[in-house]
């Protein structure tokens, strides 16, 4: 998996400029809030259009402003797990969990529902309603839902940020097991550098919309 990025985004006063290649199967992205981490993930997912530039995964061009190419999110096969799950609240767990799976072409399904349920340990939740789930349970369901869409790349936007330490410890082993067993390439965004380094093979630090450090040089704590 190689993600080639050379993009600018300007939104009011905020500007993001990233030009790099992410080649590890797992990459962490850290930085303070407002640094552009989420915008970067949304760019790769196709939810935000670059003002200028090009995004390609393994040579497959997803955005190229010079050639007026913008592949819409639903055709990218890139999963995104949000900070707060973002599950449809009026359904039981199984329906939103299989939302993406049902939209797949027959040959494109690489991950079975049962395997995801086992890996994430969500069997007891399947028949329950979303509204009754705890934060940790929701995050596991959100992760399962993204996996079931069989993405070629999974983006995780602070998936553990809203959880307390006990819940983190409940979800983290599941995450590690999933990525190991499914060999799913992923980008992991978090402001927690230690957690990110434990999970990923390469760490990129961004601040004020620009890359400031990579891998072995964790970012210096900023004053603001």
């Amino acid at each position, binding site marked *: 998996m190689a993600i080639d990025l050379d993009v600018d985004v300007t939104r009011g006063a905020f500007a993001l400029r990233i030009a790099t290649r992410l080649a590890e199967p797992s990459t962490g992205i850290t930085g303070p809030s407002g640094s552009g981490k989420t915008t970067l993930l949304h760019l790769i997912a*196709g*939810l935000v259009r670059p003002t200028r530039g090009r995004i390609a995964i393994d040579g497959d061009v997803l955005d190229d402003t010079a050639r007026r190419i913008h592949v*819409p999110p639903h055709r990218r096969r*890139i999963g995104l797990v*949000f900070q707060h799950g973002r*599950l449809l*609240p*009026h359904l039981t767990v199984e329906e939103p969990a299989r939302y993406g799976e049902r*939209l797949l072409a027959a040959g494109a399904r690489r991950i079975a529902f049962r395997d995801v349920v086992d890996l994430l340990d969500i069997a007891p939740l399947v028949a329950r309603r979303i509204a009754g789930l705890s934060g940790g349970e929701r995050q596991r369901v959100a992760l399962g839902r993204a996996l079931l*869409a069989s993405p070629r790349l999974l983006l995780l936007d602070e998936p553990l940020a809203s959880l307390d330490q006990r819940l983190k410890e409940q979800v983290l082993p599941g995450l590690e097991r999933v990525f190991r067993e499914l060999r799913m390439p992923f980008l992991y965004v978090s402001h927690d550098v230690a957690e990110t380094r434990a999970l990923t093979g390469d760490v990129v630090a961004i601040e004020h919309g620009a890359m400031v450090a990579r891998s072995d040089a964790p970012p210096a704590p900023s004053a603001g």
Partner: protein
Amino acid sequence: MSGWLSAEEVDVLLLSLRVALASIAVLAIPGIAMGWLLARRDFFGKSLVDALVHLPLVLPPVVIGYLLLTVFGRRGLVGARLEEWFGLGIAFTWKGAALAAAVMAFPLMVRAVRLAIELTDREIEDAARTLGAGPLRVLLTVTLPLAAPGVLAGMVLAFARSLGEFGATFMLAGNIEGETRTMPVAIYSYIQQHDGDAPLHRLVLISIAVSVVALMGSEWLSRRLARRLAA
């Protein structure tokens, strides 16, 4: 009911309900589409479209009725074609009454849908998009179910507005007993008769009752839906 109301008044009530339901049927899909468009899309001329949608709220209803008559009348641009090609008469028929009511209620429906969609969580839509759902599927499986309480409230408001429509209806559809004499038109007719006081008062009471029941029903349904959506 027929013991209390005369056959004529029952006809007026049933016709009004038919016209209001037809009005909702005509405006539901365009109203949802326009509400979504104004809530979720930016396009050239959006403020002009927004202004045109709201025109029936600010123009005198008789002006809207007159404009509809020039377009849908027997010699109107559209009306003449409909008559010629499909044998479909609009002016001075109950269909005209429904059309006039739909046009007048349209902005209320659009405003309710727009507000409901603007209040839904965009991240849930974004999540669906990354799961492979195209724009139409996102609208049908995420946006509309989440906005359902507001959409429903808009439809009830439009229904109540349609029941009460007078000015545009009178211009386009006239006052034909059993065809276009809806409750407000009938009330207007009774007021001009010397012996019309008793039926007048009954129709006024029914108007109030139907509207109150519709508004309370929509409030109840909205709250039920909102509870179901509460995460």
